[in-house]
């Protein structure tokens, strides 16, 4: 992406987090943060596929994310849940988890050892946009309403993501994006055309559900989204009723419906079964026309669960860290920029950001959904 080569962080003997082939490692506490290879002790920031992998000996994650983690990694895992802000000692290193605003149960990992504090952010949502352009909310920052909002944690070194680490990524207030989606859905409903809205099944789908105007018409979801909706509802997040498409008593209501599904259904038999639908994709990548074209969808809605450029900058400043280590995204750009701002900056190369939502299709629901779809277009 960038012409610049990544600039690795200068490792020091007393660093609290270092790079290892298995993942980001804390030598003092002998544990890993979001490792991609099997290790004995893993601290997980959140349950997306690129951060939560299988096969670790013991897991430490937020209590809120436990349900989703067990659904995705299996009931048998050894998982210790921590409330936000609750601290635990791991080999003399104090570990606590703090809200990151990315998805349900997402956390930043705060590590304290001998008076030095490091924070690994995982993925986080901070937007440079205000929650509304006018009215009482004007001036307050936009937040993800389906999970605990990002809380800056003071630290000496901040490990930040950089998924949207370019100044071209500036989110609009999400009320505006939701208004666009509502207008699109209402127009489709008036034409008797299903509205197929694509978004990652964990996080984005629920944010869409919580944000759209459910009075426009019925809402249905793909089989991969439903278990995650259940997890959000169990955690106390209010979502409008959204049965699975397969459970609808009368498929004709699909013509006025909003159908929320993971992006992988685009072009599939399942999607064709909906009929002549208009498709939209909700993602931060939809900011660029080129990306919208490449995805081949009718509409792109710029809605991300990651921080935009102003959000990244304000999050970094809020930690008051003097050292910043940049991971997954535009590392080289962010490092050069942060150095210009007078910070000590480097990068870690990680496997985060690859196949963000691979875990989107739990085996059971996928198996259940696809043959049903295949049958309907069979020779019968």
């Amino acid at each position, binding site marked *: *992406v*960038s*012409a610049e080569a990544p600039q690795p962080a200068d490792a020091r003997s007393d660093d609290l987090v270092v790079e290892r082939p298995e993942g980001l490692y804390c030598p003092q506490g002998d544990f890993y943060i979001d490792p991609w290879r099997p290790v004995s002790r893993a601290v997980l920031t959140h349950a997306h596929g690129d951060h939560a992998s299988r096969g670790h000996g013991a897991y430490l994650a937020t209590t809120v994310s436990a349900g989703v983690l067990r659904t995705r990694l299996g009931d048998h895992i050894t998982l210790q849940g921590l409330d936000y802000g609750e601290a635990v000692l791991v080999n003399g290193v104090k570990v606590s988890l703090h809200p990151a605003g990315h998805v349900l149960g997402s956390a930043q990992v705060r590590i304290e050892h001998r008076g030095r504090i490091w924070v690994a952010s995982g993925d986080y949502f901070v937007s440079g*946009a205000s929650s509304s352009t006018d009215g009482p909310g004007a001036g307050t920052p936009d937040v993800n309403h389906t999970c605990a909002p990002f809380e800056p944690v003071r630290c000496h070194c901040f490990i930040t993501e950089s998924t949207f680490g*370019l*100044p*071209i*990524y*500036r989110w*609009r207030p999400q009320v505006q994006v939701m208004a666009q989606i509502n207008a699109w859905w209402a127009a489709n409903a008036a034409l008797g055309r299903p509205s197929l809205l694509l978004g990652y099944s964990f996080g984005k789908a629920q944010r869409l559900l919580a944000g759209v105007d459910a009075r426009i018409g019925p809402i249905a979801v793909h089989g991969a989204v439903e278990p995650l909706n259940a997890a959000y509802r169990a955690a106390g997040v209010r979502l409008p009723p959204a049965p699975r498409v397969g459970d609808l008593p009368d498929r004709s209501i699909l013509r006025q419906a909003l159908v929320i599904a993971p992006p992988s259904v685009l072009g599939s038999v399942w999607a064709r079964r909906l009929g002549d639908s208009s498709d939209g994709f909700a993602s931060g990548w939809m*900011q*660029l*026309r*080129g990306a919208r074209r490449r995805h081949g969808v*009718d*509409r792109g809605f710029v809605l991300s669960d990651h921080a935009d450029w102003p959000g990244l900058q304000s999050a970094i400043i809020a930690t008051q860290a003097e050292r910043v280590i940049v991971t997954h995204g*535009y590392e080289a*750009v962010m490092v*050069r*920029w942060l150095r*210009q701002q007078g910070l000590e900056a480097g990068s870690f190369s990680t496997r985060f950001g690859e196949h963000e939502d691979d875990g989107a299709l739990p085996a059971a629901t996928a198996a259940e959904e696809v043959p049903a779809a295949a049958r309907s277009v069979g020779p019968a």
Partner: protein
Amino acid sequence: MRRFADLYDALDASTGTGDKVAALVRYFGEAPPEDAAWAVYFLAGGKPRQVLPTALLREAACRRAGIDDWLFEECYQAVGDLAETIAHILPAGQHISNAGLAEWVEQRVLALRGLAPAEQTARIVAAWDELDAGGRFLLLKLIGGGFRVGVSKLLVQRALALHAGLDAKLVAQRLVGWTDARATPSAARLQALLAPPAAAGVGGAIGAGFGVGPGGLDGRSPASEDSGQPYPFFLAHALQADSKHFARRSASRPTGWWNGSTTAYAPRSSSGVASCGYGRAAKSWSATAFLRWSPRRPAGRTARSSMVNCSSGPMMRSRRRRSTCCSSESGARP
């Protein structure tokens, strides 16, 4: 500008021609005529000469966004489009303007031409602050002459015809020359474009847009709406008929037609110098607009044909395209 930006979004978002035409018709129905006139100009492919150098735009954007050139370059590499890059890196506009497209183009964009660079920078930065990202993108595309959206001239003609209840072929004919660089779209020109077929003086109004005098293109006063307007043809293949079956329709002496290949037939004026059209206005016609011929002229006024190789002329070199033209539909002509 907001309305035009919404139209752009609707056109950009849709892949169906039916949806696009519907969006265009809706726009023409809602927009003030002076804005719609400019919209027709841009949608039909009109490009005003670039009023601001790219380097100035880039520098002004970097300064406004508070970023260095290297970071701008990184963004540009990710986006792949200068106007879109600038539109996104700028902070959100402070006072969104309600000005229409015509006001933006005439008073903000075209007025920049010839100003001192410092003044140009100040004005463009002020303009950015009055637009959201979508509006800025469009403004920059209009400034840079790179405006395009998935709409063909044909679709614009169809939408205009639907909007005004006219024959699409008539609209197509009237649209010839609409995007001429010297013609300024205006409410009056749009009115002429959309006037009922029989309205008198329409040809004069259109001709005036070309910078042609009140006398009309060939010295006669414009008696009907198509006086002087070439007829855009859409034939699948070249007409095989002999040119002697075609008579010229005006006092000048056109004697041939385009055949779309490298060798072109062009009218020979009375002075013997090859030209491609009627009078001064003709110089601005693109090769997709063609000479108009009336078949079955009264005996004794048959045109003489002579072949002129226009491909070597400076005008032809820049304007030559593969196209085919032949006779128009109109038969008897006084």
